[in-house]
């Protein structure tokens, strides 16, 4: 069961990774502001407004160091079954999610 989930994640991550690499257009400035608000406020419900963690883990640059971006994108879009992490694909596109992950890993979304 766990194995299948990991394999599924890896497969999807590969596919998305390709999509992200191709369609990596950053969102427009207005949308970037909306996404930043979404991450801080709504991801922040569980991960903390400053992204240092809550019921969900920290999303700071340090916490995400070394984590493959593609799998983080999949986690955001699809959620993590069996945990409290819900899917966000109804609210963000793949390209937007890739931008969010990049900003999180740069540590530029948690600045106040």
């Amino acid at each position: 069961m766990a194995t299948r989930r990991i394999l599924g994640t890896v497969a999807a991550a590969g596919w998305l990774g390709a999509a992200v690499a191709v369609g990596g257009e950053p969102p427009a400035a207005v949308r970037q502001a909306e996404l930043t608000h979404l991450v801080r406020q709504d991801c922040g419900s569980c991960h903390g407004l400053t992204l240092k963690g809550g019921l969900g883990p920290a999303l700071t640059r340090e916490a995400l160091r070394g984590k493959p971006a593609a799998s983080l994108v999949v986690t955001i879009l699809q959620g993590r079954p069996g945990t409290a992490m819900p899917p966000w694909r109804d609210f963000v596109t793949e390209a937007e999610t890739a931008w969010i992950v990049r900003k999180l890993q740069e540590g530029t979304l948690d600045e106040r």
Partner: protein
Amino acid sequence: MKGETEVLGRWRTAIVAALVAGGALAVLADAARAERGVVIERASGSVQLVDNATRAALARVEGLGDLSHASLVFSSDARYVFIFGRDGGLTKVDLAAARVVGRVVQAGNSIGGAISRDGRVVAVANYEPGGVKLFDAASLEHLAEIPATYGAEGKRAKVVGIVDAPGNRFVFSLFEAGEIWVADVADPRAPRVTRLANVGREPYDALITPDGRHYIAGLFGEDGLALVDLADVSAGARRILANYGRGEEKLPVYKMPHLRGWAVAGPYAFLPAIGRHEVLVVERATWRETARIPVHGQPVFVMARPGGGQVWVNFAFPRNDTVQVIDVERLALVETLKPGRTVLHMEFSAGGEEVWISARDDDRVVIYDTASFKRLGALPAASPSGIFFEWRAKRVGM
């Protein structure tokens, strides 16, 4: 500045009048209209002191750290509040002077706290490091720590759902461990802890009934809630509303419900379902399901109006611009309101005549009449979240 001094004077005058006069008449005359409260300003790490008689802000207190998930409790005389910040900060604010009189950063990541029934001990529930710390309410001196260790490897769980309970006890839940602990703080330097294991998967928050008799923890990891009879802790926890989802796939939960607050009205307790757009109704005599009421979204707060008759519900992202009202007699929705963008919290006046609702993304607190549902006014506030009126000082679990 001048206005601030004036209104501060009014707060002080009212409190002094109540304390010095001590007479029921003086207190009643004041209480009929004047009720003070505190509004958390989430993003700026500040609180506003407000007056519900004039619906005006009295003062702002700043420098409270990360209040992204903040709550507070009142001292038993309602003179002070103890504010629990996300960053582990525990701040004591003097409401009469509108200033910080004590502050400790006591953990890395906190979720909330409670004050003992005798008003002497403040307990803070921490995620990191997982556990509870006890502080002297007068001095904020650290008295004791209760590490939330579980399992053979001695891991520490995140602590949620802490409440004060009769007999100077605190009750709280361990998210990863699936346990409920009851700590007797008669000697606050040496708390005595009773552990109840296997209460259910992932308790995420909890409440105590207004009579102080029952502690109810909501479960995220399974359909159902855990119930402890605090008059007989040794009997352990029992499951209520087990399998309310009936195995159906859950809807995504974008924000965890909050159970603290009044959930009891008439013979019923009203509880948020997890992953279902429903409010669950249980009969308190039997703890059996009476009804389930379909609502607008994933409920976050399900709060009974003081004085009864109504239960108010707000909702998780993305349906968080709406508040609905359930009629307790008919067990049906009677009103749907749109107070503003991102409704985070609701607070009733002591008698339940008014409700104050924070609309975070509109930067205001909106006030409604609970009988007519008429909008009475609004107050500007920076990213407001929790609203707390001083009547809480006298109530168990608030």
